[in-house]
C-alpha cells in the first residue's frame, strides 16, 4: 500500500499533465476533424489561463466562475479571428494562426499588469486531477456525439473535399468556425486548469513550440478517431518520464535522449503509421489477415 501511495505522489503530476495535454490535443483536433490546420490553441490557452488567473488572484472570484471565463473568453475571440482566417487554405491557415499566437504571447510579454515575462505567481492550486479528467471525458463525449450525427458527416465531408461539400449545400464557414470555437474553449479550459495546478503562468509557456507539441500529440495519436489525440497525449507525456527511468539503465543521459527519441518517434509515426497509434491494431490485424490469406 505504501509503495502505491508513493507511486501516486511521484506520478500525480504526470497524470494531471496527460489529461491537460489531452485537452490541448483535442483542441487542435477539433479543427483538424474538418481538415483545417489551425494552430491557434496556444494563444487561446494563454487567454484562458490568464483570464482565470487574474480573476482568482486579483478579484478573488470562485474557481468555477474563473473556469467559465476561461472557456467563454477564447470562444468570443475565436469568432473575429476565424471569420477572416478560415477562408485561407492549408498551410497558410496554419501560419496565420501561429502569427495570432505569437501576437498574443508578445502582448502578454509587454503587458505590465500581468508582470510581462515574469508572469503571475502564487496562483492558488484549485485544480485536482479528477477535474481534468472530467473535462477530458466531457470533450470526448462531445466528439463521440458528433461522430454519427449530421454535424459529424458535414465535418467529414469538408475534410474530404471542401469545394465539393460547399457545392452540396453545406455551409462550410459555419462548421469550420464552430469547430474553431470548440477548440478555443477546450484550449482555454486547459490553460486555466494548468495555471491553477502549477501555481503560476507565464508567456513563455505559450510559444510556438507549445502549439507544435499539441499538433504532434494529435497526429501521433491519430486523427482518424476522436480519442486518438488523447492516446497521443498520454504516450508523449509519459515518454519523458519512462525515459528518465530507462536511460540511466542504458548509461545514457535522459535529457538529450528524450529530444532525440521525440523526433524519431514522430518521424516513424508519420512515415509508417500515418493514421497514428490508434490505427496500429487495425494495421496489425490487416497484416495478419493478408499473411494468412497468402499462406
Amino acid at each position: 500500500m505504501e509503495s502505491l501511495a508513493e507511486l501516486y505522489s511521484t506520478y500525480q503530476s504526470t497524470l494531471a499533465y496527460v489529461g491537460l495535454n489531452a485537452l490541448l490535443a483535442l483542441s487542435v483536433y477539433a479543427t483538424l476533424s474538418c481538415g483545417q490546420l489551425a494552430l491557434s490553441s496556444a494563444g487561446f490557452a494563454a487567454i484562458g489561463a490568464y483570464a482565470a488567473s487574474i480573476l482568482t488572484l486579483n478579484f478573488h472570484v470562485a474557481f468555477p466562475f474563473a473556469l467559465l471565463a476561461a472557456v467563454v473568453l477564447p470562444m468570443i475571440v475565436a469568432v473575429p479571428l476565424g471569420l477572416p482566417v478560415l477562408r485561407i487554405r492549408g498551410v497558410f491557415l496554419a501560419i496565420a494562426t501561429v502569427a495570432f499566437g505569437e501576437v498574443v504571447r508578445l502582448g502578454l510579454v509587454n503587458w505590465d499588469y500581468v508582470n510581462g515575462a515574469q508572469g503571475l505567481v502564487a496562483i492558488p492550486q484549485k485544480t485536482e486531477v479528477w477535474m481534468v479528467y472530467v473535462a477530458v471525458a466531457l470533450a470526448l463525449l462531445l466528439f463521440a456525439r458528433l461522430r454519427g450525427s449530421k454535424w459529424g458527416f458535414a465535418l467529414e465531408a469538408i475534410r474530404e473535399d471542401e469545394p465539393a461539400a460547399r457545392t452540396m449545400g453545406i455551409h462550410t464557414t459555419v462548421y469550420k468556425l464552430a469547430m474553431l470555437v470548440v477548440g478555443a474553449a477546450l484550449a482555454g479550459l486547459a490553460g486555466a486548469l494548468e495555471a491553477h495546478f502549477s501555481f503560476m503562468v507565464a508567456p513563455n509557456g505559450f510559444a510556438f513550440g507549445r502549439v507544435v507539441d499539441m499538433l504532434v500529440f494529435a497526429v501521433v495519436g491519430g486523427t482518424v478517431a476522436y480519442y486518438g489525440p488523447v492516446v497521443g497525449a498520454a504516450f508523449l507525456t509519459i515518454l519523458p518520464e519512462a525515459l528518465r527511468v530507462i536511460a540511466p539503465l542504458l548509461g545514457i543521459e535522459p535529457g538529450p535522449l528524450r529530444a532525440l527519441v521525440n523526433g524519431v518517434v514522430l518521424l516513424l509515426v508519420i512515415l509508417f503509421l500515418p493514421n497514428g497509434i490508434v490505427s496500429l491494431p487495425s494495421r496489425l490485424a490487416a497484416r495478419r489477415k493478408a499473411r494468412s490469406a497468402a499462406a
Partner: protein
Amino acid sequence: MRFPVRSFLAALAALAFAGPALAQQTVRIGAALSMTGPAAAYGANQKTGILAAIDEVNGSGALKGVKLEAVIEDDASTKEQGIAVFQKLINQSKVAAIIGPTLSNTAFATNPLAQAAKVPVVAVSNTAPKGITDIGDSIWRVSLTEGQVIPGALKTLQAKLGFKKAAVLYGNDDAFTKAGYDVMKAALADLKIQVLGEQTFAKPDRDYNAQLTSLLGTKPDILVVSALIENASGIVAQARQLGWKGPIFGGNGFNNPVLMKNAGPAAEGVYVGTAWNRASTDEANTKFLALMKSRGVDPDQFCAQAYTGVLVIAEAIKQAGTKGGRDDVKAGFAKVKGLATPLGKFSFLPNRDGDHTPAIQVVKDGKFQILQ
C-alpha cells in the same frame, strides 16, 4: 566443495575492522536542473559545480560518517517536467534537499510542492525578488537577487565614473533579465541618473544594431544592459562596432568567461555588477577555481553558486550534528553563519534569502578584475 573456512574467517576479520566505515550514512541531494531546452547552458554549468562540490565534500571527510550523493534530473526548462522531477526527487529518490530549479519561472511552480512536503529547497540561480523564499520556510536561497547586487554596484560605479545620463537595453521576454531591468531602473532613479532611452530585445535575437543605434544616438554617458550571456556578448560587440567607446554596465548574466571569449577586445571596459567575485583571492574561491580547472571547466557564476549550494547543505548537515534528515538540514540552515564559500562569507538572512558581499568587476586585459 569443502567450506572455505580460512577465507571465511579472513573475510569476517576484515569486516570487523571495516566496521566503523560501514556505519556510513548516504544522504541524497537532489538537483532539478535545466539540462535541455533554452536554459541548457546554465544547467550544464550548475551540474559541474554540484558534482565537483560533492566530490570535494566527500573527499575532505568534513562530514564524518555521512556520504553525499547527487541525484540530478533534467527539467527541460519547462515547469511541467520541473514538477514531475520534484515529485520524483521528493517521493521516489527521497532526497534530503533539492537544489534548483534553474529557472525562476519553474521555481514558482515546483517550490510549493517541496514546501508542502517539507523538503528543503536551495535556490542557486533564482533571482526573482518575490515569490521564491516567500513560498515558505522550506525554501532557502543562495543566489543573491538583482536587488541585492545592482544598486550597490551602480552606486560604486557612479562614484568612480561620475556618469549622469544612461541608456538602458534589456531582454523583456525572460524573467531573469526583466527582473534585472526593474532593479536597474529603480537604482538609476535613486541615484538621480537621467535615463535618456530604453530599448528591449528578445532572447532569440542576435541582431541588436537597431536598438543600439537608437540608444547611442541619445548620447548617454553609460550603457546599462540586462541580458543573459548568449545576448550579452553580441550586444557588447555590436555596441563597440557602432563606435561606442564608453562604459557598459551589465548584471549577473554577464558574469561569464564566455563574455571575453565571444566579444573579444570589445569586452574591455565592461563593468559587471555580480554576486560572484571571480577575482576574489579568498581561499575558498581560489580552491574552487583550481578544482574546476583540474576538471577542465572554466566556471561561470551559475557554477559557483551551485557549488556553494552544496557547501551550504553540507554545513547545515554538520550544524545539525552530522544528521542528514530533511528537518535536520532545515534546522542546520538557520545555523549557517559566515561559511567560507567561493561567493565569500555566506549566511542566510532571516527571510531565508542569501547574504554575502557582492562585487563589481571590470573586464581588463581579457580578464575579470575587481574594480579598484
